[in-house]
């Protein structure tokens, strides 16, 4: 008897994903950034001040030039990867965790719980864009941790809505009905049978939201609500650089370029993942 070849979803996915060169390239860039963020070269001192070269333009000694204290911008951007990526990644993951739980519960149980959760999301959605995060920071005060809290809350409703709608459609499927009829516990159905089904949409949203979170965090820093200007954070560097516009354009150009490239990488990766995971679009 001939053995039937089983298509494993994971293998299928990898095969399809590898064909999308731009997405793969973006993923490599992100992996590199995360690597830099975690294993920062200890030889780099972002606060070393070269007082002979204040606001110096890019040169062979200082690739991206120096800032107002003569600190090397390239080093500060490399070291800043940790704060900038750390803030956005952690806030998106916290938002995703809470949002997914709420979405699963809302979609599965329905009724009053669902209305309460979904109406709360509507309320969070009625604060236009970043203004919710700005409002939260206005209450709890500036600082890196508070920015993480604000952006997490800002992200929750998007995840809740998306996970809820996947849960609703999965809940109608036969295998869920079968598990219910043989008496599988609700929590088991939710986490073992329904949750894996929401993962594809969740991954795409997660990737896209990271891009938004990086911009939001940088915007809050730029407005003066985020990391303190002494810390090497990309948004805070732009905020300082603004005072030297005209004098030292490189202080604005490179940190912004880093933010742009990182967000672009996450968005391109998200696009690639969506095209791979959603067969309807092909």
């Amino acid at each position, binding site marked *: 008897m001939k053995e039937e070849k089983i298509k494993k979803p994971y293998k299928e996915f990898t095969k399809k994903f590898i064909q999308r060169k731009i997405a793969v390239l973006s993923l490599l860039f992100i992996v590199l950034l995360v690597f830099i963020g975690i294993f920062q070269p200890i030889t780099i001192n972002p606060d070393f001040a070269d007082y002979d070269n204040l606001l110096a333009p890019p040169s062979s000694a200082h690739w991206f030039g120096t800032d107002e204290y003569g600190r090397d911008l390239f080093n500060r951007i490399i070291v800043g990867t940790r704060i900038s990526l750390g803030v956005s990644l952690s806030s998106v993951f916290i938002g995703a965790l809470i949002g997914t739980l709420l979405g699963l519960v809302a979609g599965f149980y329905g009724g009053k719980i669902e209305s309460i959760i979904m109406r709360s999301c509507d309320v969070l959605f009625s604060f*236009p864009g970043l203004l919710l995060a700005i409002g939260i920071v*206005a209450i709890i005060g500036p600082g890196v941790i508070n920015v993480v809290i604000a952006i997490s809350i800002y992200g929750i409703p998007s995840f809740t809505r998306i996970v809820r709608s996947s849960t609703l459609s999965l809940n109608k499927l036969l295998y869920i009905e079968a598990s219910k009829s043989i008496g599988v516990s609700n929590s088991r159905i939710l986490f073992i049978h329904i949750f894996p089904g929401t993962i594809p949409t969740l991954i795409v949203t997660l990737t896209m939201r990271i891009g938004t979170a990086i*911009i939001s965090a940088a915007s809050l820093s730029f407005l003066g609500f985020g990391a303190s200007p002494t810390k090497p954070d990309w948004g805070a560097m732009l905020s300082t650089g603004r005072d030297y*516009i005209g004098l030292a354009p490189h202080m604005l150009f490179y940190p912004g370029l880093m933010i742009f490239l990182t967000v672009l990488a996450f968005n391109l990766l998200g696009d690639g993942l969506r095209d791979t995971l959603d067969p309807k679009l092909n």
Partner: protein
Amino acid sequence: MYRIIKNKGGCDKTYILIIQEKMRYYILKRLINTIPIIIIVSILVFLFIHLIPGDPARLLAGHQATLEEIMIMRDQLGLNDPIYLQYFHFLKDFFSGNLGTSIKTGLPIKEMLIPRFKPTLYLAIFSIVWASIFGVVTGIISAVNRGKALDYFVMIGAISGISLPLFWLGLMLIQVFSVNLGWFPTGGVDGFKSYILPSITLGAGIMSMIARYTRSSMIEILKESYIRTSRAKGLSEILVVGKHALRNSLIDVVTIVGLQFGFLLAGSVLVETVFSIPGLGRLLIDSILFRDYTVIQVILLIFTLQFIVVNLVVDVMYGILNPKIRYE
């Protein structure tokens, strides 16, 4: 009225009446859904001062205030009343136009706000207009040339536009066009010219968004059988795309333009900061930095209510434009 429709579309009178009934029901449902949201949002904004750790009266009176001053402040703000009463006073005052006074400048908030509306409004209008026009046009060009180099070029541009931190774009534009070339002022509001760079900055992301949605909606529509029919009839490509396809894709585009309104409001905060435009967004940021809590409260409420109303209008318009939604 009914007869005209009947002759044109071949529908009978009862059918039209049913649709009108459903439409009315849809709008009513949407309106009723909005009311609790407005109430909760206003409660949240009202609670804003109470959510900040510490005694609101002490916060508002400042650090150096004596106990007596704090007591007077308590009395003035009605903080001795029960909290629900305070909320009703807050709402009544807000909707009767009595916005209170700033705790930092002592000026009536209404007077502080009025001159700030115009710059924000102009900025929003200029941005959304150019972003919609260019977004729709590039989206169509991209869809018609799907898979060709031009399509790739537009789509790479669009995803870059979405990924750009708009305050950085603004700063770069100032650097190149104001500092280096000297074509535009670096900031402030002084005639139409000073709105050009800020509007480009604020509109860039929205334009990219609109271009992406127009493209995907256009691609879907170009597959429809009525497009094939129009082509088979021998209509010119311009007429097929520009009239038959565009009309239907505009339904989606209207929604997207509406949804971008939130982005526009939040973006105006950043753009006004970058270009030193004395608008509402800038006032909000200044108030947060100066801890002028009463002003923050009023601006947050204005922004949120605007956003809720625009979303409502967009939803209703979508219902009117797209008959499918009425049957849900």
